């Protein structure tokens, strides 16, 4: 029966995928640090999503002042203390994670895809003018230090979150182009690619169905490790004043505000800084674990 056949096919395909995922999890879970990283990351993400519901003072993330409660050290009521206008730092940090994670997610979404596609095209057309054009443009972008370029762009436009994200995305894609270019140009000479060409498969098929699946693992690993750097970059821009603007609770912005009050009111800077460290570390640990998942073991 037609339906029978299709259903069997679907079942078999899905069970193959499932097996792949459980094997992947097995390899990941052998790394206790990576699991810790994953747990911490999970908590951070959940906290950021449900921030209004789980923070003790969600309204402090919006414009709020309470000078009677200002500059209080950490206590039972305010775990991370209060800042100079009386806002609860803990709640603001949790809301701050929203900005950081959004920056990370958006930048990578915007930056990775074009980078990968350009690298793929350049790698497949290695030796032709297409490769030259794409890779030279990539080289130009790579020659400028990311921070400087991002600064320049945000300085030209009005400093806000959206522009900040676009600026970072613009400096991020070249790294992926280069990574995928290297992978694609070496994969090009594999027998299975040659066979597909000889069969008559079109360029699109070969690039996206034969070569790209083999690039997936390094790209995924790099993305996870990059998240940390992107978040740091975003926090740096905010710190300088070109990113998230006060009174919004960006983590970098908070570090900048609190820095003026060091060392006396240390809680204003230290806690947001630690929060940045925590999320970057978590991403790095998960990235390490992913690298193990994707590595092929030989016995």
């Amino acid at each position: 029966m037609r339906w029978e056949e299709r259903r069997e096919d679907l079942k078999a395909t899905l069970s193959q995928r499932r097996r792949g995922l459980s094997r992947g999890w097995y390899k990941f879970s052998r790394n206790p640090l990576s699991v810790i990283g994953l747990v911490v990351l999970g908590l951070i993400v959940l906290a950021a999503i449900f921030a209004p519901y789980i923070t003790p003072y969600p309204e402090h993330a919006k414009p709020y002042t309470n000078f009677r409660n200002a500059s209080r050290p950490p206590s039972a009521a305010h775990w991370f203390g209060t800042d100079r206008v009386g806002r609860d730092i803990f709640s603001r940090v949790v809301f701050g994670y929203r900005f950081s994670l959004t920056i990370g997610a958006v930048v990578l979404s915007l930056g990775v895809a074009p980078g990968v596609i350009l690298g793929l095209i350049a790698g497949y057309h290695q030796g032709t003018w297409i490769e030259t054009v794409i890779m030279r443009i990539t080289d130009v972008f790579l020659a400028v230090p990311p921070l400087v370029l991002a600064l320049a762009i945000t300085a030209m436009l009005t400093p806000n979150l959206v522009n900040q994200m676009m600026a970072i995305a613009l400096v991020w894609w070249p790294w992926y182009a280069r990574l995928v270019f290297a992978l694609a140009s070496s994969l090009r000479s594999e027998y299975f690619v040659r066979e597909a060409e000889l069969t008559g498969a079109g360029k699109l098929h070969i690039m996206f169905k034969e070569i790209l699946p083999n690039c997936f693992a390094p790209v995924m690993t790099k993305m996870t490790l990059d998240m940390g750097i992107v978040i740091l970059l975003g926090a740096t821009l905010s710190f300088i004043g070109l990113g998230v603007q006060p009174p919004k609770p960006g983590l970098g912005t908070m570090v900048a505000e609190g820095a003026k009050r060091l060392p006396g009111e240390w809680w204003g800077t230290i806690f947001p800084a630690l929060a940045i460290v925590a999320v970057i570390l978590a991403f790095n640990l998960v990235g390490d674990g992913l690298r193990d998942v994707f590595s092929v073991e030989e016995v």
Partner: protein
Amino acid sequence: MECLLAINDLHVGFRIFEGHLRVLNAVWLDVKEGERVGLVGETGCGKTTTVKSVLRVLPMPPARITGGQILYNGKDILKMTQRQMSMLRRHELTAIFQDPLQSLNPVFTIGTQLRDIVRDSAIGRGHRLTHREVESRCLEALRVTGMPDPERIMTNYPAQLSGGMRQRVCIAEALSTNARLMLADEPTTNLDVTIQDQILRKLDELVEEQGVSVVMITHSMGVVRDLTQRVNIMYAGTIIESGETRDLLESPQHPYTQGLMASVPKLTGEGISEGIPGRIPNYLDPPSGCRFHPRCERQMEICATSMPSLYTTAEGHRVACYLYGGTL
């Protein structure tokens, strides 16, 4: 004659996340002074694991020696200290591997590498050599392997030489240590057939001259026929047949050996058999009893329940098969 090397009932396993791989299972192999012995088996049968066990270069987790002994000159290698083992590797044992590009360091010239070995080997025996002595020994070692223009080769890098020449360098290196036992793991598999022939002949000559004992590991029956006096056939980590080479090849006894011989394409043009049905077993859960029994046309009940030991047959071979003994 006392055995130079005797592997007695060796069992080696590997611990991996999916479980415990029971790879080597009852390996028996001996080599007398000056003898050339073959170890034949297909991919995955455990030949290289055996070599690595003798050299004690198996990564110890995940590998584990679960039984047996390896005696060199009567002393158990497995019980030696690192220092004793190191001495053994330096002076008594030597090895040639399949891919000379992996054995030779790509960033040093042949000369540098060869001189290191010659010098080190002499120092180890307690005498120092002058530069000139070292140089002449290196050139001699290369010349003797049939290498044209040894002076020039000394200045070359491995990448500049052809596969055959690289392998000759490896042989020169192996023989300059004056070792007594050579382990040759598929030394000519990657080479063209006319070069392979030259190299094997040369190797044969040299080991004969220097009285070196050799364990020749290969998957090619043809190679052992010309080069070895005795041969051992390995399947799934077990030695299943052993005997004088010519005899064994002319009349193989074990069903696996017979299947193997039938699969080899012959110049007589009698066609190729369908091979041996089935696959090599999974070492995580190997077949009970005789590891070959699921693929064997002549399996009997007892084959699945217990493992046969090596029985001596009328032809003088030792065969691990109930067809030849043990069922009485």
